[in-house]
């Protein structure tokens, strides 16, 4: 009886951990895919964090002023798009892409709380969003009735159903990106411009235009990632709300070797680590003591460094990554 009880509790715990993993992975997936488009086209993007944060704020601010989730979504995407295109302008001008990305991160980190306190006078936050201005959980068809069915029903009801729109968009974006990269002309050109812009140029295609297009997609995805944080998982803008997720997405992009499905796996792993550490906060394991949650939090960064060191597997970035085209002196 006791054993059955623990087993039941265990499966409940696992289900809820899986559900939070799916939820927490969504902004990471969106941001990492955004990075994927930029970097496969040869543009280094360490500005994911800043673009996300801009969208976090713009989405929440507009949604709270208008009371409309759709307008908030549009504003979030627009804000991230503007920063992405600024990055594009710098890139095409031949600026160092790392410098430009870093600059955008700082601008977003400073501008968002400044604008928030200027407009809302609430010490750098937006007011909590009213119900209609958020993306609430969507209950998929049959989720109610299937909830009683063991395993399949539980998984469907707890893990698959009940997420918000941006989460489902994140999950759709992965197969879509994989398809676009592998099976469309745009995907082929995108990969080509990241590997060999000279060849693309020689073929009569515009390197600048391709990279701009990639960055536009990048901006839209970053916008979705940010909106997901402030309008679906959170409730309004808080200072530094992206909290390093842009860098984490960058780590997932490297861990996933710049390919959509492995990137998804990396995001799920990092999100699972996050879900587990949130659950273990303050838990004392018998014979082990308090769980060092910081260790679990640090795990994604350690993994990335190990991957970059080439100790486990190799991560080969796109060949032209970070190199301006035409080359600068």
């Amino acid at each position, binding site marked *: 009886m006791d054993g059955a009880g623990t087993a039941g509790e265990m499966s409940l715990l696992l289900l809820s951990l899986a559900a939070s993993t799916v939820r927490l992975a969504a902004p990471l997936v969106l941001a990492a895919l955004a990075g994927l488009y930029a970097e496969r086209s040869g543009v280094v993007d360490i500005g994911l964090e800043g673009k996300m944060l801009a969208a976090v704020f713009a989405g929440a601010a507009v949604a709270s002023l208008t009371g409309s989730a759709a307008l908030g979504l549009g504003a979030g995407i627009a804000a991230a798009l503007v920063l992405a295109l600024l990055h594009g302008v710098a890139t095409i001008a031949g600026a160092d892409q790392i*410098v430009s990305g*870093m600059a955008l991160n*700082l601008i977003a980190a400073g501008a968002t709380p400044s604008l928030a306190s200027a407009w809302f006078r609430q010490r750098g936050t937006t007011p909590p969003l009213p119900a209609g201005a958020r993306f609430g959980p969507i209950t998929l068809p049959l989720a109610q009735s299937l909830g009683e069915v063991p395993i399949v029903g539980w998984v469907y009801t707890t893990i698959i159903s009940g997420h918000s729109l941006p989460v489902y968009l994140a999950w759709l974006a992965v197969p879509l990106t994989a398809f676009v990269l592998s099976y469309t002309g745009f995907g082929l050109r995108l990969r080509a411009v990241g590997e060999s812009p000279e060849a693309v140029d020689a073929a009569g295609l515009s390197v600048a235009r391709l990279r701009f297009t990639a960055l536009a997609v990048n901006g839209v995805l970053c916008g979705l990632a940010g909106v997901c944080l402030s309008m679906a998982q959170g409730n309004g803008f808080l200072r530094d709300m992206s909290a390093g997720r842009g860098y984490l997405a960058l780590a997932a992009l490297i861990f996933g070797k710049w390919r959509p499905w492995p990137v998804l796996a990396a995001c799920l792993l990092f999100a699972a680590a996050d879900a587990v550490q949130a659950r273990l906060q303050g838990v004392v394991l018998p014979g082990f003591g308090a769980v060092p949650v910081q260790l679990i939090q640090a795990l994604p960064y350690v993994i990335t460094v190990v991957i970059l*060191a080439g100790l486990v597997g190799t991560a080969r970035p796109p060949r032209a990554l970070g190199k301006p085209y035409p080359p600068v002196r």
Partner: protein
Amino acid sequence: MTRRLYRVLATLLVPAASVATALAAVAGLVLITGEAPSRALCTLLRGALGDPEGIGYTLFYATDYVFAGLAVALPFQAGLFNIGGEGQAALGGLGATLVVLALGSLPAPIVLVVAIIGAVGFGAAWAFVPAVLLARRGSHLVITTIMFNFLAAALMTWLLVEVLIAPGQSALETRTFPPRLWLPTLADITAGTRFDAGEAPLNPMAFLALLAAAFYWVLLHRTPLGYEIRAAGLSPLAAQAAGIRVPRIIMLAVCGGGAVAGLIAVNELFGSQHRLTADITAGAGFTGIAVALLGRNHPVGIVFAAVLFGTLNQGGAALSFDMPGITRDVVTVAEGVVIFVCGMLDGVARGHIGRFLRTLWMAPARQAR
């Protein structure tokens, strides 16, 4: 002659343009809050430079930024981008604090000297792993140093929660250092005089910052090692061919950057905060990028840029105090804009647009010959 003029123009125009754009961006933010930008500028300047206390604070922050700027500039001379100043400074703070906790009973000068060595050593050690990974395995320094910033934050939080926290405290900080270890500040020296500097934490580390900037110049331009660093930065392949051991140069330049970053923590710990917290650097490591870019990696430029950002930081504090709705975050915006415009103009100058402009510029000179 024309070439020289072109270079002088570039050195002056790029910083001027980026500072002007940054000020315009800040003015825009001020306008949004409904205040007059001119009044904001007055408040900012008065707060930063209007009285001895303001000047003391400005130069105290500038001290941080000189170290942070050098921590970016030294690896930059070797062609490398060190974004890890934040983490390296945090670890420097850990090193200095451990020295104080271990040797706190020894005479103050000894403790201070060993603490500085500890800060420099820990900062360099935190840069060592990214440096060695780059030198031996070719791992991208930017990404590894970003990761090491996060690792440093996790490590510091864990240490403060589990090990170093002052007994009976709930805030994440160590116990306060004994006052005899505090560096004398401008406030101490001027207390009771006509130039009373209030609380200003400006301390002798400012001289060390100037010394470090001078040392940086001598190292780069008057020593064989500096020559090798610059050669490796200009062309690693040519340097390699000339017999320079490039991996060794990478190690020295990056660890050197980490070492200087450690000094930020010394200035903060012994000048102002007197105890280790999870966030002793307050973003100075990132300001260092702006300082190095704006200062064109030249020591004099770095000192000027550091004073400029010190002014902005201290003035920003005054601004947020005087004008509700404006926060110190406008300084971060200014940093970002400076970095963006500098990077952009550098790219323009070195890239295809610059090539076009140069041909226009040089054409009359060539014809004259």
